[in-house]
């Protein structure tokens, strides 16, 4: 199957986000790539390589000021608002209703589920990009606890209706949230704030460097420790302040990580975990198909559950092929 520009663009935007380039900063290079492909007839992969290669080259060429701290949390809120919008309309049509019942179980369960999704989806990436890889692991523990609490709330809290929420209200809130989240940022007049403690304190500077090398640039911890040890030895030999000798930890981490040949993805970005997730999505798709077919929702079973399951199967095959190819090369 031929990959369209839009499919490539989605992966490229995610990869650009991983490089600290937010949605608005990513738009000009994406549009330039689109214009190139339209003019030459080349596919984006032929012209610019994988989305990750494109993101790395683009990040290298952008001025440092445009590489903001990665805004994973905004991205996660955007996903959440989109999910609420689609789910509200879909279930309103499915149940032929203009309002949903609210029960203590649903209210608490959904709130906890949303918190669990935030903790597992956006928070680990945000913490790694901010140079705090250890705290990213805690975010998964928090997500697990929230997920369990959510399941407990759904099953044990009272199911008596306490109110009804209009579908149009949910749609309006989602649309307003999406509008606010995609607003172009105001031009910054202040310099970006320096993380506390890194100014003039060599140990804080080196700790921050280590966190950025592991968290933002996925260097194996032992290699990051090697680079930090070398910077420490250099500072001891020169007696200079780290900021004077190396610049900011963020800039130095980017420059020194750039030629590093070995990167180690966190476990949740590894192909086996992705394959497991797509496998679970297939199982959920099949279960939903059976459930909806039995409940008389035949159109939604065939028009929603089947395409979603087929998409998950396609992604599973694609991930498995890429993984096999990568293993063969290694």
């Amino acid at each position, binding site marked *: 199957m031929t990959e369209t520009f839009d499919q490539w663009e989605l992966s490229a935007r995610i990869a650009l986000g991983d490089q600290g380039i937010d949605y608005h900063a990513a738009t000009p290079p994406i549009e330039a790539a689109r214009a190139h492909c339209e003019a030459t007839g080349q596919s984006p992969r032929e012209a610019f390589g994988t989305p990750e290669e494109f993101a790395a080259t683009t990040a290298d060429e952008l001025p440092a000021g445009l590489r903001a701290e990665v805004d994973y949390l905004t991205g996660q809120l955007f996903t959440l608002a989109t999910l609420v919008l689609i789910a509200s309309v879909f279930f309103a049509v499915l149940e032929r209703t203009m309002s949903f019942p609210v029960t203590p179980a649903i209210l608490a369960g959904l709130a906890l589920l949303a918190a669990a999704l935030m903790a597992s989806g956006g928070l680990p990436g945000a913490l790694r990009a901010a140079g705090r890889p250890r705290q990213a692991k805690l975010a998964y523990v928090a997500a697990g606890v929230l997920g369990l609490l959510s399941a407990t709330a759904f099953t044990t809290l009272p199911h008596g209706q306490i109110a009804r929420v209009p579908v149009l209200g949910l749609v309006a809130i989602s649309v307003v949230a999406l509008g606010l989240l995609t607003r172009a940022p105001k031009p910054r007049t202040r310099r970006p704030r320096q993380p506390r403690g890194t100014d003039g304190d060599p140990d804080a500077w080196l700790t921050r460097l280590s966190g950025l090398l592991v968290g933002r640039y996925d260097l194996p911890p032992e290699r990051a420790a090697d*680079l930090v040890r070398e*910077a420490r*030895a250099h500072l*001891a030999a020169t007696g200079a302040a780290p900021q004077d*000798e190396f*610049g900011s930890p963020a800039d*130095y981490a980017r420059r*020194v990580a*750039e*030629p590093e040949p070995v990167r180690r993805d966190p476990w949740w970005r590894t192909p086996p975990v992705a394959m497991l997730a797509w496998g679970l999505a297939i199982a959920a798709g099949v279960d939903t198909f059976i459930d909806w077919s039995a409940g008389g929702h035949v159109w939604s079973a065939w028009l929603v559950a089947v395409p979603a399951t087929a998409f998950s199967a396609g992604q599973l095959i694609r991930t498995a092929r890429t993984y096999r190819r990568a293993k063969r090369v290694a």
Partner: protein
Amino acid sequence: MAGAPPDPLAGWVRGSLELALLAVLADGERHGYALAQQLADQGLGQIRGGVLYPVLGKLEAAGSVRSEWLPGEGGPGRKAYAITAAGRQRLAAERARWHEFVDVFDRMLAATDREGLR
């Protein structure tokens, strides 16, 4: 009002730092700070750690240099860099290209010199 133009040396050195480091390492292994000092002694100005180590990392990733940690006396130890056989080959090839490059530049600048005298 624009002041005096900045000294272009730093930019030239940054552009040719890989070759300069290979040339210094051809004399024997050195740690990062000693490399920076050697380049400064040769008249290439002060090379900051923020510029030096990413270039050494690039050379190491390309297989032109290798490194090993040497124990320090009470300090954090030092990482010594040494040129590899591939690095020596690269140095020889780039040295020839560098002479050609300098010849071209000399001819070009000599021409502008003559035009200035006219």
